[in-house]
C-alpha cells in the first residue's frame, strides 16, 4: 500500500448528502406497479387457544386480494428450521410465521391480509373473526417454573425450556482457597433499541419463473434467505436491502416471520405487497432484549484477587423457543471481561413466558456479563474495604500478557487495560473528584462516581454453540466469511460491491477510504453499489449488521479485493508502459513508472484497454479490471471449534473501554442526572475517527438511557403497558448527556489494518457504569443497587429504603 492518505482520518461522508436531502432510499420509499398493502392480524391476548378463525367477510371486502389465516399458513408454508439457539431443546418445537393453535404473547401474528390501500386493509382486518379461548398468562419466571403454572408449550412439559452449564478451570478449588466469598443477586430488565424506522418489507413473486424478490430492511440477508427457503420451499430468492433506518439487532430475527407472511400474500394475490410495521406493533412484537437475573458468587483473596466466579442466570425469554438461549450463549463472548480469573462456572436457565420473544440487541448477553463483573467488583471492594478502582487494577490482564487466552478459550488480541483505566482516572481527575464528593456530601448532595471497564468483542464464530450444546447434531458452521468486489470502470472510476447491508455505520465511507489508499485514488472516485442485492453481492455468512462483523470481514474483504485489483492494474500498466511492476507507483488514479515522467497511464486509459482493446493486453491476462475477495479470519485457530474441554473462541477481536460516570441523584424525586460521562477506549487502529466516535456516542447513549429507565413493562395479564416511545421512556436530547471519548488504540496484530470492532461498544459497559455511580451517590444512605433500570421511581424507592 502507498502510505495512508485516507485511512485513519475523517473523510467526507458518502452517505450524508443523500440523507440530508431526503434522498435516502428506505424500504417504504419503493413503490411497485399494482402494489398492495398488507396489515397483520395480531393476538390481543397474552395466552390463548385459537379456536377458530373466520376470514370469509374479510375476503369479500372491497379491495381485498388475499387473506392468510393460521390454517393457510400451515398448509402453504413449512415451519422454520430450529435454529442453533434452540439446539438444546429436548424436543424440537415447530415455529411457523404465525401462531397456529395458540397465541403466546400480545401482538403475536395470527394472520395477514393485503388490499389495495392501507386504509382498506385496516378496515377489512376488523372483519376477521377470531374465537379465542383465553388462558392464564405466565409473566414472571419464578411463577412460570412452579409445577402448577400453565404451560406455554405442552410438548416441553415445563416452562423451564432449557438448562445447561459450563465450567472452566477448578472452580471448587478456587472457592476452597478463598479468603472470602462475595455474593450478590442482580437483575437487568427488558428493553430494546427501538430503531426509528420500523420493520418494512415488499415482496414480489413471479409465478412463471418461481422467483421471489423481497425488499426488506433486514440486518442479516442470510436469515431472510434461509427463512424463505425453509418456509416456502423456494430456491430462486433475491433479497434486496435498501437503506436501513437503524438496526441494533432488532431487524435480525423476528422480521423473518413478516417476510414470509408478506411473501405468502404476494404469491396468493400475484401482486407485489408492501408491509410497514407501526410503532405499537414494533413495541409489542418485534422483539425485546432479555430480562436476566443473576445469582453471583466470587471467591476472593484478601487483596481483592478474584480466584473464581460462579453465576446462575435465569432468562425470561418470552413466548418463543427460537432464540431462547441467545443471552446465555453470548456470555461466553466476554466471560472473563478484562480480568485474569482462571476458574469460572456458569449455569443458564431459559424460562418461556407470555411476553414478546427475545432477540439480539446491541451486545445481546454481553451487557449482562459486564454488569455481573462490574457489580461484583464494587461489592468485593466494599466487603474488603478496598477502593473499587484498586480491586479492578489487581485483576486486570496485563499488556505484556497479550495475546491472552482466557479460561474459556477466547484469545484477546491486544490491549492495555491498566493504561485505559489509568488514563480515564487521570482525565476525569479522580482524586479531585472524590475530594469534591466528600465536601458536597457534607452539604447533603448525593454525588456518585462509577468507574468500570469492559471488553467489546468482534467477529463471529457459531461453533461456539457446540461448547454449550454438546448434543448438537449438525455443526452450525465456524468462523465467518464475507466478500467484496471492486471494479475499475472503463472511465477510470471505481465501483465497490460490498457483501453487507448498512444500517447507519458508514460502510460506504469507510470502505472507500480503505480502497482509495490501496489503489491510489481519491475516495470521491469510488462509488458503492446500493442497495445490497443478494443476486449481485459477494456475501457470506458474516454479511451481517450483527456480531460486530464489519471491521473484520468487510474491511478484510475490501482490503483483499482492492489489493488483488491493484495487482491486476499494475500488471496491465507494466505491459503497456513496458516497465516492471516493481517500478510502478499509483497516485491520483495514474500509474507512473520510475525514471521517466512521461511513462505513465491513467486508470481511464487502462479501463479502455481492459474492456476493449485485446491487442494491448499481456498474454494470459484475464480481460476486465475486477476483483472479488472473500475474507475469512486467518488467525481463527486455536479453538475455532470447541476442544473437548469446551475451549472456544466466541469472537475474534477485543476492543475495550474504561468508563467513568459522574451522577447526581435528586433526593426528593429519585431522578438521576449524569453530570459527566467519559470513555477512554481502544477500538484498535481507527479507520475514520468521526465514524467510530459516532458508534461510541450512540451506543453509550443507549446504555445510559437503558440504565436510567427506558424499558418494557407488562402487567400481570401479560399486556404490554409501554406501547409508545414516550411510555417506553426513550431519551431525547434533554436527557442524553454529552459523552467525552478519548482513543488509546492498541492495534490488533491479527487484522489487516490493526482494526477492531466499534458498534455494540459502549452499550456493553455503560449500564454497569451508571449502576455503579448511582450506588456510590446513595452510599450515605447505605443502600445497594442490584437491579436495572434506575428510573426515578426505582431510585426514589431505594432512597426511602435508606431512610427507613
Amino acid at each position, binding site marked *: 500500500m502507498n502510505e495512508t492518505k485516507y485511512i485513519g482520518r475523517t473523510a467526507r461522508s458518502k452517505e450524508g448528502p443523500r440523507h*440530508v436531502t431526503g434522498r435516502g432510499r*428506505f424500504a417504504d420509499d419503493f413503490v411497485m406497479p399494482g402494489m398492495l398493502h398488507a396489515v397483520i392480524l395480531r393476538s390481543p391476548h397474552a395466552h390463548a387457544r385459537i379456536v377458530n378463525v373466520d376470514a370469509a367477510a374479510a375476503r369479500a371486502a372491497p379491495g381485498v386480494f388475499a387473506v392468510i389465516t393460521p390454517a393457510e399458513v400451515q398448509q402453504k408454508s413449512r415451519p422454520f428450521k430450529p435454529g442453533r439457539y434452540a439446539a438444546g431443546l429436548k424436543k424440537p418445537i415447530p415455529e411457523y410465521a404465525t401462531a397456529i393453535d395458540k397465541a403466546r404473547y400480545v401482538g403475536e401474528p395470527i394472520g395477514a391480509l393485503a388490499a389495495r390501500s392501507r386504509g382498506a386493509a385496516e378496515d377489512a382486518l376488523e372483519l376477521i373473526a377470531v374465537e379465542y379461548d383465553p388462558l392464564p398468562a405466565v409473566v414472571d419466571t419464578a411463577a412460570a417454573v412452579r409445577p402448577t403454572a400453565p404451560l406455554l408449550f405442552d410438548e416441553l412439559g415445563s416452562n423451564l425450556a432449557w438448562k445447561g452449564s459450563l465450567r472452566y478451570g477448578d472452580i471448587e478449588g478456587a472457592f476452597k482457597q478463598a479468603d472470602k466469598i462475595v455474593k450478590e443477586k442482580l437483575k437487568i430488565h427488558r428493553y430494546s433499541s427501538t430503531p*426509528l424506522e420500523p420493520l418494512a418489507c415488499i415482496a414480489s413473486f413471479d409465478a412463471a419463473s418461481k422467483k421471489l424478490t423481497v425488499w426488506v430492511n433486514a440486518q442479516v440477508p442470510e436469515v431472510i434467505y434461509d427463512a424463505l427457503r425453509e418456509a416456502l420451499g423456494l430456491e430462486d430468492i433475491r433479497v434486496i436491502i435498501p437503506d436501513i433506518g437503524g438496526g441494533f439487532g432488532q431487524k435480525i430475527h423476528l422480521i423473518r416471520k413478516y417476510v414470509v407472511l408478506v411473501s405468502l400474500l404476494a404469491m396468493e394475490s400475484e401482486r407485489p405487497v408492501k408491509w410497514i410495521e407501526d*410503532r405499537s406493533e414494533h413495541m409489542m412484537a418485534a422483539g425485546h432484549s432479555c430480562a436476566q437475573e443473576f445469582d453471583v458468587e466470587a471467591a476472593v483473596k484478601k487483596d481483592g484477587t478474584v480466584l473464581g466466579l460462579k453465576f446462575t442466570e435465569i432468562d425470561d425469554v418470552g413466548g418463543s423457543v427460537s432464540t431462547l438461549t441467545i443471552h446465555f450463549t453470548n456470555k461466553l463472548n466476554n466471560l472473563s471481561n478484562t480480568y485474569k480469573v482462571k476458574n469460572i462456572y456458569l449455569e443458564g436457565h431459559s424460562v418461556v413466558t407470555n411476553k414478546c420473544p427475545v432477540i439480539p440487541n446491541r451486545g445481546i448477553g454481553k451487557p449482562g456479563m459486564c454488569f455481573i463483573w462490574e457489580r461484583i467488583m464494587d461489592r468485593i471492594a466494599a466487603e474488603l474495604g478496598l477502593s473499587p478502582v484498586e480491586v479492578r487494577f489487581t485483576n486486570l490482564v496485563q499488556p505484556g500478557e497479550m495475546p491472552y487466552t482466557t479460561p474459556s478459550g477466547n484469545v484477546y488480541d491486544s490491549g492495555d487495560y491498566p493504561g485505559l483505566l489509568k488514563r480515564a482516572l487521570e482525565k476525569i481527575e479522580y482524586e479531585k473528584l472524590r475530594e469534591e464528593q466528600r465536601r458536597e456530601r457534607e452539604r447533603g448532595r448525593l454525588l456518585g462516581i462509577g468507574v468500570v471497564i469492559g471488553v467489546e468483542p468482534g467477529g463471529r464464530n457459531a461453533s461456539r454453540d457446540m461448547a454449550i450444546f454438546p448434543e448438537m447434531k449438525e455443526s452450525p458452521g465456524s468462523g465467518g466469511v464475507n466478500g467484496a468486489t471492486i471494479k475499475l470502470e472503463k472511465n477510470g472510476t471505481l465501483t465497490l460491491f460490498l457483501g453487507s447491508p448498512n444500517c447507519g455505520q458508514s460502510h460506504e465511507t469507510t470502505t472507500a477510504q480503505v480502497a482509495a489508499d490501496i489503489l491510489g485514488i481519491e475516495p470521491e472516485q469510488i462509488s458503492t453499489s446500493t442497495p445490497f442485492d443478494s443476486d449481485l453481492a459477494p456475501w457470506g455468512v458474516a454479511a451481517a449488521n450483527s456480531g460486530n462483523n464489519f471491521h473484520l470481514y468487510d474491511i478484510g474483504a475490501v482490503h483483499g479485493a482492492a489489493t488483488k485489483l491493484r495487482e491486476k492494474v499494475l500488471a496491465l500498466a507494466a505491459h503497456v508502459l513496458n516497465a516492471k511492476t516493481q517500478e510502478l507507483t499509483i497516485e491520483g488514479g495514474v500509474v507512473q513508472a520510475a525514471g521517466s515522467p512521461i511513462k505513465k497511464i491513467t486508470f481511464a486509459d487502462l479501463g479502455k484497454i481492459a474492456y476493449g482493446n485485446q491487442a494491448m493486453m499481456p498474454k494470459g491476462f484475464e480481460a476486465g479490471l475486477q476483483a472479488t475477495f472473500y475474507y475469512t479470519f486467518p488467525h481463527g485457530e486455536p479453538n475455532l471449534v470447541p476442544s473437548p474441554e469446551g475451549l472456544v473462541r466466541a469472537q475474534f477481536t477485543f476492543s475495550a473501554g474504561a468508563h467513568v460516570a459522574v451522577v447526581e441523584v435528586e433526593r426528593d424525586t429519585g431522578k438521576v442526572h449524569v453530570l459527566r460521562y467519559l470513555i477512554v477506549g481502544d477500538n484498535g487502529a481507527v479507520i475514520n475517527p468521526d465514524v467510530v466516535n459516532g458508534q461510541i456516542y450512540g451506543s453509550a447513549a443507549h446504555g445510559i438511557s437503558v440504565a436510567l429507565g427506558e424499558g418494557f413493562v407488562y402487567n400481570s395479564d401479560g399486556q404490554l403497558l409501554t406501547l409508545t*416511545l414516550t411510555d417506553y421512556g426513550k431519551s*431525547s436530547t434533554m436527557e*442524553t448527556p454529552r459523552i467525552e471519548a478519548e482513543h488509546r488504540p492498541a492495534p490488533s496484530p491479527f487484522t489487516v489494518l490493526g482494526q477492531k470492532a466499534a458498534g455494540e461498544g459502549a452499550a456493553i459497559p455503560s449500564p454497569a457504569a451508571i449502576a455503579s455511580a448511582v450506588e456510590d451517590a446513595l452510599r450515605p444512605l447505605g443502600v445497594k443497587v442490584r437491579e436495572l433500570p434506575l428510573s426515578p421511581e426505582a431510585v426514589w424507592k431505594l432512597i426511602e429504603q435508606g431512610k427507613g
Partner: protein
Amino acid sequence: MKQSICVKINGRVYEDEVEPRQLLSFFLRETIGLTGTHVGCVIGECGACSVLLDGRLVKSCLLFAVQADKREIVTIEGLADDGRLHPIQEAFVQRYGLQCGYCTPGMVLAAHYLLGRNPDPTEEEIRKALAGNLCMCTGYMQIVDAVKEAAKKVNR
C-alpha cells in the same frame, strides 16, 4: 368523499383530491412523492415527519392533508438549491450529524427552524429545540455539534 386541496410545496403548487382521513405525512410521501418526510411513530412522538408549514415546524403525522389547503409547505427536498446543499445540510454532512439517516430530514428542518429564530443558539437552546426529534443512533452528540457548525455557517 374526496376533497380537493391546493398546496404549495417547495415552491410548486399542487392541486389534488384527497381522502379526508389522509394524513399530511402520507400525502407528501405517497401522493406528492416526496419520501424524505419519514414516519417513525404516526403519533407525534418522534419528529421524523417534521416539515415547515407556513414557516413553522410541524409534525406532519399530526395533521390531515386537508389542513394544508391553501398553505405553504417546505419539506427536506426543498432546502437544497440546485443540488447545492443548504449550509445546515452541509454542516450535518461535515460533522457526521447522522448515522442511519432516518431522523435526519426532521433534524435538519428542526435546526433550520431554530436558526431562523435564533441564529446563535447555546448548546442548551439547541437541545431544547431538538427535543421533539428522536434519534436512536447518534446519542445526539454529532447532531448538536452539526447545529453549532451550521450556526457558524449561516452567520458567515
